């Protein structure tokens, strides 16, 4: 599984460096074409949780073959509104609609821009 390099929108370090994303919480099942990623916001009321989740989802959508079903959700018990956020992230239409919003897309792309030029 490729290691993800996503920038935190508010911090100079990447999600991996902040332990928001950990390898142990990423599960890949190649035969059943399923990928599941759990992420842990830094604080329980993190307002950026949806954005971070969306960035992870977009990165996976762009980096994995079409055959994979992608599930991104918050590590249980680590966020105040995890149910609501998980529901949004699981809804394909809402994700697609979000990415049509130019401003939102801009922020997501900034998170996904690689630092090595």
């Amino acid at each position, binding site marked *: 599984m*490729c290691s993800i390099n996503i920038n935190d929108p*508010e*911090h*100079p370090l990447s999600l991996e460096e902040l332990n928001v994303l950990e390898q142990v919480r990423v599960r890949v099942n190649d035969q059943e074409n399923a990928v599941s990623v759990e992420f842990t916001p830094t604080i329980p009321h993190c307002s950026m949780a949806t954005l971070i989740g969306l960035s992870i989802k977009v*990165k996976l959508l*762009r*980096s*994995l*073959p*079409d*055959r994979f079903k992608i599930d991104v959700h918050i590590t249980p018990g680590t966020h105040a509104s995890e149910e609501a956020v998980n529901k949004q992230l699981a809804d394909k239409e809402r994700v697609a609609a979000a990415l049509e919003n*130019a*401003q939102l*897309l*801009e*922020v*997501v*792309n*900034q998170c*996904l*821009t*690689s630092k090595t030029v």
Partner: protein
Amino acid sequence: MLKSVFQDTHVQSLMIQERSCVYNILINLMESRQQELKGLGSDFVFGFVQSMDGERDPRNLLLAFQIAQKIIVGGYEMGKFTEELFEVTSCYFPIDFTPPPNDPHGITQEDLILSLRAVLTGTPLFAEFLMPLIIEKLDSDVQSAKVDSLQTLAACGPVYGHKELSQFLSGLWSSLRREVFQTSSERVEAAALSALTSLTACLSRSIITSDSDDALHTLLQLVLTDCQHHLLEPDLKLVWPSAKILQAVAGASYRAHLRVGTAVMPLLLEQYINRTQSTQRRTLLEVLQGFVQPSEASRPAEGEECVLLPFQSSLCSVVFSALTETGAGLQITATRILSALGQQTGVLTPHDVELAVDHLTTLILQEDDPQVSGAVVECCGSLAPRHPAAFTSRMLPKLKECIFTERMVQGDSVAPAELGSHNAVRQRCVTALARVACERSLVQESSPVLLDVLTAAHTGRDSFSVDEVISVCHSLQRIAEHAPHMEAEIGQFFHDVIIPRLLGLAVQAVVQDEGSCGRSPLAEEAVLSVVAPVISSSCSRLNADCAASSASRVVSLFLHGDVAFLPPTNIPLLKTPFLQVSQLVCLLTACVCSLPQSVEIPEIDRLLEELEEVSCTHTHSFTHTSAAKCYAGLINKRPSGPALDTALERSVKRASAELDNSASCLRTQALTLLLWVTKGLLLRYHPLSSALTDKLFSLLSDRSLGPLVADGFALLMSDSPDVLNRGCHADVRIMYRQLFFSENSAKLVQGFNSAPPEEKAGYLKALSHIMNNLPRQVQLTELPALLPLFLEALSCPDGGVQLSTLSCLQPVLLDPPAPLTNQMEALIPRLLTLTTSPAMKVRIAALRCIHSLSRLPDHMMLPFRARVLRALAAPLDDKKRLVRKEAVQARGEWFLLGSPGR
């Protein structure tokens, strides 16, 4: 004239061009009529301020800033208009400028920032206005404004003195402190720290009168008060920001280093002793490391004491205790501190040095973490030159003992793990021996140990494996390359001891019968290939006498079987020496082809004859290739004249005859010789090289040799590690590759065009080998003419051609010239096809090219975006992980193309 310009024209109401005119007039006048302008006094400045007020055009701003700089630097009197001049320029600070697209003038934000900065920081007279401005702008939320302010502050340091800064110190300090303690960006933090360093350096330089405060003292007091106590906190939360600040300040000057060091070192050392938790100790040690190495600016001058001296003994005891801990991080940091301490005179007492060496030895023998042992070896390498005696007496004997300790071998009952760890220890000892041999006595003590290993391996004693033998040779080579050969004694030692022993072992190995122990490892091709560089590295560095002596000894060995100079053994006298030791031709090459051109090789004509014979007739590939290389190496340096011509004529005739005879089974040998001779000649611009190159071209169409010839062009153009390079004192003329290319590219293109389809690949391969080795500038200029060939090459079925074309193209794609950008429609589909090629390397190279393309201007690449994204979906599922990785990167970048937020 000026009066009328200033009085009668209202500059800002003119058009852009006309305003530029006015500014240019001013600039010219300042250059030609400086005296008169200065005579106008501060009225000139006033007039200029009025002209500039409200200027918006970037080009004009640059001109205006230039004038302002000249005013400040040129000593024009500003008088009561100083503040006005400051106001009219500082209103643009901090610059926030986005160049319009397709800007023909190419003015960047950076240009404006730097130009304005030169104005604002140009004179101490602005200090009273600039400092408050900076403090205000530092409060801004915009990161670039903060960075600009900090960098401007740093630029003030060299220009100002303590008078200008002293009243602003506390304001500046609280802003700077905030920027480091609450930083949200590395850039801001770094800028703040360098501003702090600059300020401290400025204050350190100031000369204080008896009645003024020591501003440096004031600043340091502020800093220490706010930062010191964080070093004592139980959970060390703010240790790093405080440490970085203290280190930035200490690195500014010796005075600052002394003051900070005196305050901070005892605290840190005490903390280390009191805290026992490993992670805390590691943090403290890493903080300590930052204070131990003085920077350029804070190095003590002649007669000044090293800052660390008062704490010398507690520092050493902390370091030694850390070396014995079990945390890798702790140990590595400790070794680095030890190296830093060793570099400063007087910090390590002789007793400390001995203790250090003992610790390091223990670590080498017992510590198997590769990072730690790497750090330990580094430390040894840095301490050894200064304290050779301690290493010779304490470390080397223990390492030697470890290497030669017999394992308890009882039949097959040695556990593999035990065997593995013993080998690992031996390996570490060998590496350490090589690294410390950077001084005469150390070389003389450690290299015999390594040679003893080779001898032991040769006689079958102690069961050293072939791999271990090879690593010992690598170590010897390292010594040869890095030992300061300027010391004549080291060179002499190589000449007297090391080279003869190596040759002696090799000769014995090939001459003796395969006895009960089997074949000696020293006769293996793999081992000989690593012994040769040792001889080559050392011979290339010998002084004139030793070089001449080595040459005559080695030639005499090969031509006459003269073994007198070898260590005494019972090698029987060789009857037909050259043939008997022909396997060792690579060692002959290593010696005679690495000597400076001034050294005359004895009996060279006979040598050339023998080499020609071996290279044309021997069936063992390693041997006949080595002979060809030796031949080429010699004729490359041979002075022009009838002797050289005769030899060349003879060998070329022989090789050609063999090549023309398609039934011969020695054609490969002849080709090898031809290739190497051509290389040797073209490096020195010898006229015969053209004829030989033409012969090679003609062979491209040969059924059996064609592919070999095509690859041979790589040999011609690339750097060869063992012969015919500058390290071996070969005659290598500058720009020989460009010359070769310009003389032959037309022939290649013509040959390609007229060749039948099955032979085109050979021409393409040859061409791409040549192109790959050209300097980038030349590649770019030659590319247009060869573009059709390259595009054709991408469609060529031969994987080797595809790969070399792709690797040639990829760097060019990062900044392609116009002819290439016009061909995108032809290029991109071909690249996409290659991403599914059967060869992994081709897939990876193609994906990298596509990745490079994503960097081109959006308007050029957008038409291809959809196609590329679709096509790159397949490589995401490639069965090879490396290919998938490249595909993810490329596809990710193409997604961002033309999207907001890129």
